């Protein structure tokens, strides 16, 4: 929403994540203020350790593939 069109004072529009997300205490709020995606933390908490490791492996494989493609493109002179 454009601020000029907003009926509420600008100060009230400032996003305060601790007011938007569930809190589990000061450490949780601190993580929120640091920019940590606590929704992902909550999602992870529902997973098993094996699922978390599987997710890490999949992430690393994806990153590796992207690096490979970027490197190949650079070698071919079509990359950045």
């Amino acid at each position, binding site marked *: 929403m454009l601020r000029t069109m907003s009926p509420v004072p600008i100060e009230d529009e400032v996003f305060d994540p601790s007011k938007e997300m569930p809190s589990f*205490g000061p*450490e949780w709020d601190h*993580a929120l203020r640091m920019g940590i995606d606590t929704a992902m933390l909550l999602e992870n*908490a529902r997973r098993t350790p094996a699922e*978390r*490791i*599987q997710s890490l*492996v999949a992430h690393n494989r994806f990153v590796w593939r992207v690096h490979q493609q970027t490197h190949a493109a650079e070698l071919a002179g079509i990359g950045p």
Partner: protein
Amino acid sequence: MTRRPAQQTDVLLEKLDNSRLEFVVIGGVAAIAHGATTPTQDLDIACSMTPDNMRKIMTALSGQHPVHATRPDLGEIQNTPESLAQFRMLLIQTDVGRLDVLGTVEPIGGIESLAAVSMELLPSRSFRVLGLEQLIAVKAHVGRPKDKLVEAELRALLRLRLSNPP
């Protein structure tokens, strides 16, 4: 093609488990196991730096072209287990990813000082993983920006666990 291979943490864990090495998973993978979201590109473990353990590690990595990560120009690791046992830590690059082996975990100490918990990191395979409280202490001690982020994640997860006991 880039020279560094994909990090296959699951394969490394399986190979180490097969070798019967007694070790504790520490570092970023331990943080992930506890629920942190920050990805990591290596596997850190702690174990006693004995010749027998070094033999087990090198047997586990045989066929994966292990090299010293800081001196890949030296080629495949040729050190004897006795020689490797003299290292304070081993930083090993293999065809299935990076493995860092530490004899001491600062600021806690050797493997006998570590409070590890058992976690099923691979299907039907349990591993000893550094406990959440000690892992937080390690991350706080290291103190690099990325460690501070993981430390904050772990503190939040500890708080969440205390709020929702199993």
